[in-house]
């Protein structure tokens, strides 16, 4: 589904990602761990194609096509969908104005979709203006459920969501990724995803297949998501960094 090869990225002349290679297979739920400032959000933003993130070398392939230079909307049309952590406010543009463009095309019932996640009254509100943390997540998920991508980029879906709303957000994500069917890991019917998480809370809702740890802008390790999360929780990120350093020395 997604293949990243030796990616180097800078923002305003400052290198953020170096030598990043990773793959996400069809139907795979992939987790991205890493300390603050490791470059996790930068990686998702680069995959989506935001212009601030300048690729200095390396390639991104999606569904077998080179999208390294593709504009954002092309990537969206090919099936990439992002749930941003801090999307911008757009004053004067109602959530309905944006969503109707897509629902008209696909003959979806917007009211019904919004009602199912208790977002009906938000349709008349300006996009993200005055939304709480949980409301931003639900708005992003409503947009994604209209967009129906094949590959989900989820940037910390649990951040800013209180425990009560976490179940709602978690279950919505599960429903989107499982493509409405009950699903387990490596189910080919599932939508692929790359999910950033700090706390691992989202793993209660997703059967994750694989995880990468990103440190200092580069991939340090990969492995079983639950095992890696356990290690991070007991030993922090140091252990992983150390193991990588040793590996490099041995090589």
């Amino acid at each position, binding site marked *: 589904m997604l293949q990243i090869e030796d990616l180097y990225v800078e923002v305003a002349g400052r290198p953020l990602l170096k030598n990043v290679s990773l793959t996400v297979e069809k139907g795979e739920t992939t987790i991205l761990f890493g300390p603050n400032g490791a470059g996790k959000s930068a990686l998702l933003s680069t995959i989506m194609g935001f*212009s601030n993130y300048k690729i200095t070398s390396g390639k991104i392939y999606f569904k077998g096509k080179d999208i390294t230079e593709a504009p954002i909307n092309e990537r*969206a*049309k090919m099936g990439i969908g992002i749930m941003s952590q801090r999307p911008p406010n757009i*004053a*004067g543009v109602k959530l309905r104005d944006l969503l109707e463009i897509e629902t008209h095309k696909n003959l979806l019932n917007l009211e019904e979709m919004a009602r199912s996640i208790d977002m009906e009254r938000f349709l008349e509100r300006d996009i993200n203006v005055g939304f709480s943390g949980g409301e931003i997540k639900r708005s992003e998920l409503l947009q994604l459920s209209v967009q129906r991508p094949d590959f989900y980029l989820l940037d910390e879906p649990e951040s800013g969501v209180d425990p009560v709303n976490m179940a709602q957000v978690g279950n919505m994500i599960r429903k989107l990724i499982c493509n409405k069917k009950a699903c387990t890991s490596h189910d080919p019917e599932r939508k692929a995803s790359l999910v950033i998480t700090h706390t691992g809370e989202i793993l209660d809702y997703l059967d994750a297949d694989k995880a990468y740890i990103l440190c200092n802008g580069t991939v340090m390790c990969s492995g079983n998501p639950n095992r890696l999360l356990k290690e991070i929780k007991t030993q922090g990120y140091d252990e992983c960094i150390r193991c990588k350093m040793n590996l490099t020395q041995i090589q």
Partner: protein
Amino acid sequence: MAENKSNAKDKETAERISKSLDKEAMYGGHVDLKLYHIPDESIEVKKMTDLDSIIKSSLTNVGISADGNAGGNFLMYNNKVSHRSSAQEGLEIMSVKEAREKYDWLEDYWWKLVSPEADKYTARSYMEDSDGYFIRVLPGTKITSPVQSCLMIGSEEALQTVHNIIIVEEGAELEVVTGCLTHDGVQRALHIGVSEMYVKKNGKLTFSMIHDWDESVEVRPRTGIRIEEGGLMTNNYVCLKPAKSIQTNPSAYLEGEGATAYFNTIAVAHPDSVLDMGSRVFLNASHTKTEIISRTITIGGEVISRGDIIGNAPEVYGHLECNGLVLNENGSQKAIPALEAHAMDVEMTHEAAIGRIARDQVEYLMTRGLDENEATSLIVRGFLSAGIEGIPEILKEDIDDIIKKTADAS
């Protein structure tokens, strides 16, 4: 004898006012009045449905429908009244000259909110004995269906001078939609529109003006508004189509306790045009309130957004908001908000912001599959609609056209 005396007085007044025929306006570029003439051409129709189809279709561009279903209609073509009709009880619509003949008391409203000596434009309108609309709602009458008025220029190099009076009597309510436009083919013209609006105690007036001029038309509206106790005036001004220059700065005088005035402006400055637009509100009684909001875009022209709130009584509230976008390197924006207080316990604020379309907003919408133009259109439409609640569908198309033009040019 009495008549002679009044004639003499009239002559004296005319002489005095004629001294202002060369007086330049405080704002706005110089317009040479000699380049324009008062045209003779006029049209007259019994019913709006009798208008020819070209005029009808032009009218839809300024939100005026000629289907004859409006609560009232007024149409002026060049300097003569073409049509006037009222379909509602308690609503009077006639030409201002007819009204002056009918009502002696109209003298108390005649050129009382706009001084004929203000500048050469007002002086010229006065000296031309200009006609225009007289719209009056009788006390306690709530007009449910909006009145449409239309000022159309149909002759090349025409000087259109108009004098309008609106009176909303005590407890009455009225909505007026005014469309100002040039008729198919007219390129150069000057429009001078003098409007005097009176909102009596607890009256309510919503006045929306949509301009659709041509690239070489110069526009000098002169408006005065008086609002009494508990009265409410909402003034919407929309100008998205090209014009050579517009200079307008309506003044509202809030004279009664709790009177309120809202001014909303959305405008686009096309290449080589100058839009000098403002609103001035005098809060002359306690608990009066005003909000002046403007959203302007330049795609190559010059925008000057003025706003003045003058607090002359205690416990008044005023807020001014000028937001501008510069979408073309040749465009310019200047915001001049001003607050003035001559009393204690006033609350007056302003904010002004000039900028460009935020890249992160465009890209965010693009992640949902919109292309760059679609995303920009949506954002600009949002920017403008934040200026006026509920932009009519027809204007949305105009905005999309403008965005497309801007995108093509860049």
